């Protein structure tokens, strides 16, 4: 009769690590799936609300875009002093960004 040994009792550390890995993998899977779902359910609407709110609040990039438009209009209207002021503002914002 042939006899094979299923586990290598002399390599317990390897065995333990393997089991730990398997457990962690299951845990990770569980956490990522459930946690993502929970977070989405809990914060998605809050985020969407924030997003909509932000749409109406200009940031530096947006200010530069608006100032660029103003500059163009002032340039064509001969308002040269205002063009200089706007140039300085744009520089400041660029530095901040």
């Amino acid at each position, binding site marked *: 009769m042939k006899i094979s040994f299923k586990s290598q009792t002399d390599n317990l550390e390897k065995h333990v690590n393997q089991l730990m890995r398997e457990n962690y993998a299951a845990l990770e899977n569980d956490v990522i799936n459930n946690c993502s779902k929970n977070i989405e359910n809990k914060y998605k609407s809050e985020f969407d609300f924030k*997003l909509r709110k932000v749409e109406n609040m200009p940031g530096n990039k947006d200010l530069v875009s608006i100032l660029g438009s103003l500059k163009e209009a002032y340039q064509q209207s001969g308002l040269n002093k205002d063009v200089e002021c706007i140039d300085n503002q744009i520089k400041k914002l660029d530095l901040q960004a």
Partner: protein
Amino acid sequence: MKISELKNYSYKLNFKQSPVAVNIGAITGIDNKVDEFVKHRFEKEKQTKLQLLSSAVYDRFTKSCNAKINEIEKFKQPYNKANMLKSVASSYYQGGDVEKAGVILAQAFNALDKEEPYRQNEIKSFIESKENKKILEDFFYCSNNIKAKYFVMKSLNKLDNPYYLPIAEAVCDCDSQRVAPNDKKTIYEAKLFLNRYYDLNMIYSYIDENDNYKIGALNLLSKWGLEKHQKLPQKLFDDENEYVYAKARQTESNLKRASNFIDIEDDNFEPNRLLPEKNEMPDRIKLLKYIEENKDRDVDINSIKQLGQVGITIREAQAVRPQKDKQYSRYEAAKAEAFLKIVLRGNIKKSYL
């Protein structure tokens, strides 16, 4: 047991050897111990791991959300940008800087994309707002900045919305009660805008009526006409009335030079005019009533001109229509000009009258 039976039995049992797995771990109990050890260690580390994982997931969510928020280009949609510029214009206007308000509002119009999907109604009410009209009317009344006025008129022409035709008319008419003087370039831009909507060729059908119509038509052509309208004054070159002939020559030369202007490089403009206390368009209904009630005697010429500035209906045209049998007079010619303006504005064909 008989040998023969034994043979059969051995055949049934099949003595071929099959491997037997011996689980030493299970037999010795090591497996259980390992399981328990792992379980214990896992439970011990589980909370930390769980926290790490969930905060990683939360971080990932927050990071991606913040990235989305930062990436929003609020003014990617032209309407949003135009709206922001309009707010800036409004606050300048409320602060009393009419010139900047006008310039920025024109830039807001330039920023608009009239074809932006799902926004047609919003864009329409954005453009055709009373506040905008007031800002631009006041701007053209006050500003002596020739460059700014050219920029604003060019933007209005580009915007191509009939709501602002009255401003273009006032610019073409050089009506000092409504606009400060403009240069030829701005006036030409206003003429281009008017001619998108008014068909000045309609005037042809009226000039045969009498000299008053001829002079009225020539006066109007000098103000609103483009190079392409030279044919009408040319038609009057062989007119018996010398005054009509001279006027036709003058009008033709004005039309020829309509787009002949020099760019102004000087940025020193006269100071802006102060806003009048009341700068409103005349009331059409009151004017019409006044003119109709006093039809038997000569109504003051100013009321006739004013109705010519705002009238649009057949009834209003009839109210200022010059009489057929009257000889040339400035009064009757002014009536003819006002009449022709209403005809053009209302697109009133001769057969309707």
